[in-house]
């Protein structure tokens, strides 16, 4: 059931030669444009609209409902409003770094989707190192956060940048080690192989998704992912009641949009990684694969928003202790336990 990557599918569809490099470059750009548009649509829906609606539902309020059906046109209104705001450059900002940070935060998150299988043949690339690639790209965002925090020349931003990097460092290793425990089952880093390995039946109609095979790893990964995307209880890098908005305090206009966008794409990227390695990727009954994939990433998004509304924020000392003393030890234990289980059963 291994389907060809998107550019090759396009080439076959259009009757072009998939062995010609020029054809592949053009079709790759088309495919990349498609993936980019798809994820930007999701983010546009999530950022200005769904997030407000969800938070409002949790706190028993009515959110945006004035413009368009269900207030959906707020997306257009917000885009125009934010893009036409004046860009205020703070005094003493470290210039190329201050401009590059929003670019890095937005682009790196988008780049991760290259290797995610989204079902119905929407799978841009399938390199053998897929999972390692996606972790590598996702963690590059930390550099953007530190750059934003340092270059803004603002004390709140600086503290926010420090907290962001301390948090990402502390939860990066549990995240990757738990991801590695999935690789032990699948025996491959290739995303299509990991998805294919989850298609057998576990018990009766229950598929052998790794969330069912190893729920412990799934829970660990979900928690570490919350910290990676900086949502409650791990939102101390932004902590609006303590340090204004952390690393994004001094950003306005389009730069603010890019950072905000980058955060949401990052949540969806986290959701896409979870869907791929724990929830069987685009697999599911009746509905087509892409629909299931979107349901899964929106499910993870809903979970982060739920946590955001329901869980209080941890302090920096608690954050470090949970990360280094709790999550790290548990993820090492999970790795060895998984290895023993796999070793006994083969």
């Amino acid at each position, binding site marked *: 059931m291994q389907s060809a*990557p998107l550019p090759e599918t396009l080439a076959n569809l259009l009757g072009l030669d998939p062995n010609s490099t020029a054809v592949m470059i053009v079709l790759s750009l088309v495919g*990349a*444009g498609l993936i980019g548009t798809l994820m930007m649509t999701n983010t546009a829906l999530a950022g200005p609209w769904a997030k407000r609606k969800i938070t409002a539902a949790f706190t028993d309020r009515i959110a945006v409902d004035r413009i368009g059906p269900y207030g959906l046109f707020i997306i257009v209104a917000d885009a125009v409003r934010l893009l036409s705001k*004046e860009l205020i450059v703070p005094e003493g900002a470290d210039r190329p770094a201050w401009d590059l940070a929003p670019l890095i935060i937005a682009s790196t998150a988008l780049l991760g989707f290259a290797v995610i299988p989204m079902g119905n043949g929407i799978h841009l690339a399938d390199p053998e190192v897929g999972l390692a690639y996606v972790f590598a790209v996702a963690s590059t965002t930390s550099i953007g956060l530190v750059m934003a925090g340092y270059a803004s020349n603002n004390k709140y931003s600086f503290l926010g940048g420090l907290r962001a990097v301390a948090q990402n460092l502390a939860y*990066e290793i549990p995240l990757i*080690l738990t991801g590695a425990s999935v690789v032990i089952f699948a025996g491959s*880093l290739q995303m299509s192989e990991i998805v294919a390995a989850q298609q057998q039946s576990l018990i009766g109609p229950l598929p052998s998704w790794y969330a069912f095979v190893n729920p412990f790893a799934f829970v660990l990964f979900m928690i570490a992912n919350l910290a990676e995307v900086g949502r409650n209880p791990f939102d101390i890098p932004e902590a609006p009641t303590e340090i204004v908005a952390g690393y994004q305090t*001094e950003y306005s206009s389009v730069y603010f949009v890019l950072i905000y966008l980058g955060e949401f794409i990052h949540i969806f990227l986290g959701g896409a990684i979870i869907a791929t390695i724990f929830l069987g990727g685009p697999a599911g009954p009746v509905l087509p694969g892409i629909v299931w994939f979107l349901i899964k990433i929106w499910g993870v998004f809903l979970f982060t928003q739920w946590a955001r509304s329901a869980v209080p924020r941890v302090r920096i000392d608690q954050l*470090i202790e949970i990360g280094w003393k709790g999550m790290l030890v548990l993820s090492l234990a999970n790795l060895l336990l998984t290895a023993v289980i796999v070793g006994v059963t083969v």
Partner: protein
Amino acid sequence: MSNPWIAIGALAVVALAIPLTMMAVSSLLRPSVPEQGKRTTYESGEVPTGSSRQIKFNIQYYMVALLFVVFDIETVFIFPWTVIYSDAAAEFGMTTALLPMVVFIAILAIGLGWAWRNGAVQWVRSPRATKGADTYE
């Protein structure tokens, strides 16, 4: 099978083009009204004092970053092992495949224990901060 990195490179181009387009559109739309004091950094409405680049921050941020380097390299070594593990366990038996990694992780666990005992992963509060908390009691 074509080279997958062409497609990844294409997505890199798109991922850069989207934010750059947004910046370009915004630069056409937005006003620029430079005024006195507008560009001052935000410090809760006060006039900013001192440089932001010279503030003192907790040494712990440095300690956890150092610790991270060790464990990050560890994950680099763990990844190839996870890929071949199930095949190796089937071919040579579980002990041969697992034991070296158990030893490796045990060494790291001892290192973590050492860092733990020495307070590297324990957030130290400065005496000043603690004293401030006491006086309010």
